[in-house]
């Protein structure tokens, strides 16, 4: 059970998944990560942070229908 959320992949996450975005079904960020890592085992090698609706998450969060999740590998600006 869960909600359909939009997942955006950036940087190395985009290369490892071969996608810039997709819809996944999950009830919280923990279960979303499990779904994602099962689908893309190579993502296990990547350290990343998660943004929920454009806010950086510092702990796990419940997901609502149509939430926007972003997978953020280490930032490389500058």
């Amino acid at each position: 059970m869960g909600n359909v959320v939009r997942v955006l992949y950036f940087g190395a996450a985009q290369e490892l998944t071969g996608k810039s975005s997709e819809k996944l079904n999950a009830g919280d960020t923990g279960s979303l990560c499990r779904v994602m890592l099962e689908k893309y085992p190579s993502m296990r090698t990547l350290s990343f942070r998660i943004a929920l609706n454009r806010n950086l998450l510092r702990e796990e969060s419940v997901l609502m229908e149509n939430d926007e999740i972003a997978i953020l590998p280490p930032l490389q600006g500058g």
Partner: protein
Amino acid sequence: MKNRYLVGGPITPLLISELWTLGNDDAGAGAVSIFIGKVRDDEVNGRRVTAIEYSAYNEMADKEAEEIVKTVQAAFSDVRKVIIVHSTGIVRAGEASLLIMVTAGHRDHSTRACRHTLEMVKEQLPVWKKEIY
């Protein structure tokens, strides 16, 4: 979506001079500090970097940059204006990919705030790069 903190391609000398003239109407700004970050032609595993392709989470970059500007203005009372511009897309080695410009009444706050803004940009701006050889 138009983003005021991101620009497609390199940050050109023309853009830098245009942004610099923005502060000219503020006669109380006695100091302008500018940091320009450029793409280096590093050698990685025997291959020379010729360009970097930058990508960004545009909507979040806008929000984060606004937060950085507010934080810097709150931390340095003499600061008048903070400008951040980062490239997206391809920037060749030798070209500029980041501009930070801070105006303040005096040099102490303009130089320190410019450095502080730079460190915050490195930590918070959702931008990624891919080397092109």
